């Protein structure tokens, strides 16, 4: 390997790593607020890219039907929840948040399908279409289990990956898509060749990390989310509803996921199930950071991106083996550095 190739691989790895940063931050956000290890998060990334790709082809994205399905189920869950608690007046609110709001972008996409929309409109629409997926899934499958152990929540979230990949196949079909390049310019700085695409990926990761930081540090809602992540019961006592906090965490994370999808769409062909592997790689990054630290996650995600880039140069078919195997020494290091982890995680038996 020459230094030039090393440089190219490094830059490529940083670009991919930027995507893993965004996805990893979303995962940590969800985990710290809700204790859910949200394995299907990568699917949101893939769905966002697929949504934009189908819109660019002049077709109506399958996301519309997916949202309609999820929103319908979420509304039923919401109605059932309030009826059981004999609070029928709350139903209207529930239907507004889980029925009407997610359907607005879906309706726009439905009626403008095939219309020749400029891409600066298409991209936000694609993001708006995809963003509700996270909160809807949270409402349907995870909120009823909010008090369960981390382990049980993990098992549910793994079950959800099955469901989401099934929905993905149903609504997007088996073929792969690649979105049009966002920009095509290339810069040269001596031996370094940078495409605007790469710059855009890195810049987005930086900007969104900064926004997330400001949100958590400067806003009251951000502080409320942090409070929930530290102590759910304590947060509840001071008037923060854990349900709302969870919905917000999923919403923000979904946004990160959707943006990542738009960014990664032009660089790789994505299929309905490509998100799983993307999500898991971001996970490896997040685990390097301990699953709770945002800067640690960003660093870990970057590391995974670079590692993947070099591994694919060394042997492209074994790159997945390398990336996932790296978790084992990482876990070993974690277990040795943390000493013994005592998980007083009492399972509730029926």
């Amino acid at each position, binding site marked *: 390997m020459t230094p030039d190739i090393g440089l190219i691989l490094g830059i490529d790895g940083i670009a991919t790593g930027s995507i893993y940063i965004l996805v990893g931050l979303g995962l940590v956000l969800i985990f710290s607020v809700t204790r859910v290890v949200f394995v299907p998060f990568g699917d949101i990334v893939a769905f966002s890219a697929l949504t934009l790709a189908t819109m660019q082809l002049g077709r109506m994205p399958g996301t519309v039907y997916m949202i309609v399905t999820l929103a319908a189920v979420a509304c039923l869950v919401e109605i059932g929840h309030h009826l059981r608690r004999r609070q029928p007046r709350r139903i209207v609110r529930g239907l507004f948040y889980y029925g009407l709001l997610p359907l607005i972008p879906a309706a726009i996409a439905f009626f403008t399908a095939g219309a020749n929309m400029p891409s600066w409109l298409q991209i936000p629409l694609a993001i708006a279409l995809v963003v509700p997926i996270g909160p809807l899934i949270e409402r349907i499958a995870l909120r009823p289990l909010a008090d369960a152990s981390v*382990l*049980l929540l993990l*098992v549910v979230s*793994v079950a959800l990956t099955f*469901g*989401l990949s099934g929905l993905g196949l149903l609504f997007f079909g088996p073929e792969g898509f690649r979105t049009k390049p966002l920009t095509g310019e290339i810069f040269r700085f001596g031996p370094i060749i940078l495409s605007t695409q790469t710059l855009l990926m890195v810049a987005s990761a930086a900007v969104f990390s900064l926004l997330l930081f400001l949100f958590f540090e400067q806003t009251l809602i951000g502080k409320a989310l942090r409070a929930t992540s530290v102590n759910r019961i304590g947060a509840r006592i001071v008037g923060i509803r854990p349900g709302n906090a969870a919905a917000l965490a999923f919403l923000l994370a979904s946004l990160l996921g959707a943006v990542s999808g738009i960014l990664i769409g032009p660089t790789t062909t994505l299929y309905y199930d490509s998100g799983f592997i993307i999500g898991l790689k971001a996970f490896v990054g997040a685990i390097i950071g301990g699953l709770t630290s945002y800067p640690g996650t960003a660093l870990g995600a970057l590391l995974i991106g670079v590692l993947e880039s070099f591994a694919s140069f060394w042997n492209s078919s074994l790159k997945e083996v390398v990336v996932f195997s790296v*978790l*084992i020494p990482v*876990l070993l290091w974690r277990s040795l550095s943390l000493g013994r982890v005592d998980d007083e995680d009492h*399972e509730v038996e029926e």
Partner: protein
Amino acid sequence: MSRRAAIVLALAVIALLAAAPFYATSFTITLLNYIGIYALVALGIVLLTGFGGLTSFGQAAFVGIAAYSTAWLTTAEGASPWLGLLFALASTGLAATVLGAVTLRLGGHYLPLGTVAWGLAIFFLFGNFEALGRHNGLANVPPIYIGSLSLEPTAAIYYLIWAVLIAATILVANLLESREGRAIRSLRGGVVMVESLGISVFRIRLITFIIAALLAGFSGWLYAHMSRFVSPAPFDLRMGIQYLFMAILGGSGHILGAVVGAALITLLENALQDVLPLFARDGQQLEVIVFAVIYVLVLQFARGGVMPFVLRLVPGAAKAPIVAAAPLPRRTMPERGTALLSVERLFKRFGGLEAVSQVGFDIKAGEIVGLIGPNGAGKSTVFNLITGALTCDDGKIFFLGEDITRAGQRRIAEAGIARTFQHVKLRPNMSLLDNVLLGTYPRTRAGFFKAALRLDRQEERRARFEAFAQLKRVGLGDEPYGPAGNLPLGRQRILEVARALAADPALIILDEPAAGLSRVEKKALVDLLHSLRNEGVTVLLVEHDVEFVMGLVDRIVVMDFGSKLVEGTPAAVRANPRVQEAYLGSVA
């Protein structure tokens, strides 16, 4: 359903299964073969997850390692499938040992996430090895022969698969009702208590993990020689997740949950493949959705799976009566009055808080010593330091002349210190008897092999007799088979005392044993502690009930703000103005 009806039904099911090849179509037999092969993997998960509290999404990778091992050895090297079995089990066991050694020290969600990662890594590895045929896999795997009898026909291997499954189920069931099995069951819910009983959590976890992997390995061997072809697809992460859900759906808290879950999912999958194409062009996309919906619903509404509903119809098996047996060997108690425990200048800091500072005291064999002090004085921290649940920052602790400062909970327990906890640490779903039996762990020897083959029965009878005697001694002998979680909190503390006594300790450390007890019960506890002293057992206790302490102990150590205030006889301590100040505030 009466007990007799249940037995008749069970026998009928067995007879129907045994005669299946004579009346069922070969398609049905094939389904049954798959059920058996899947159930073997799920059985490992029931042991691992349902009883041991460890979750693995990566069992399919173990099935794959075994299937590829035997397929490679029998095709490339032309070896006998029986040699393939040995090779498959060896390679699966080795992989499990390595992966387990790395990941099992981690708690909570790290282990399952780790299994996801290596499940994927191993799957990608299969598809990229030239020697393993890459994504095309290995074909022409030979069938199994028993002597000259070929197990190539579906109906022939059917008997082998189910014989293996039934044998494995019996062995695992035996194991669970033994010393090591109780240790496995105690893993769910916190490791401090388990280690305090002298049980190595890591060792139990690792062996359980290896057993589960070997069961998956057996399944992989059967699979390879049944389908006569291996490729990466059946060992991917999807399948690993499916195995876990088989165990959960069937009921991971029960040994038969594995078969029930494997049968339900296999039959459901088969039924869906017939039905779903009527609704969609390609039924497969709907199949995963249907499964996901079922999984989420089961986890939301019936976490215990199907088995609890089945068991409601069947009367519980009669518990084996506790028969008189030779007592377990007892340790020789140190001579009364000799130095037993010596604590020197103990120091422990939590962040900026000095929880314990310069605390030192000595205890002689045969004494009852009380440790008192206001809330937050550091009493429980001292207990945790002595028993090794915490490690001190400075100072020394000697027990029977041996330095145990950094010996760790397990060695301290083996040395003869037993304890109870301020916040009760029992296994609420295990019976009173089983909870106390956990205490006998360091006094008994039977290992996993002996237990699985029921060669441990004599020792087990002795342990049960001992545990029951301790239960009766503390006044809980009425319902030894009731779940410990049903006891009121005060009695749960007393159950912890029985568990500590079952370890035959030289020193018993009790953290607020009288909290939540009625006056009568407290009186009984005082009598019990006095009789223990007469046997030569030394008692160290923390207690807030001053009247209780004053009437019981020989000596008192008073702590305040992490330091020792005074030490002396109850009367002297009561008269001490510094103690009065600490408890009541200064008079001036």
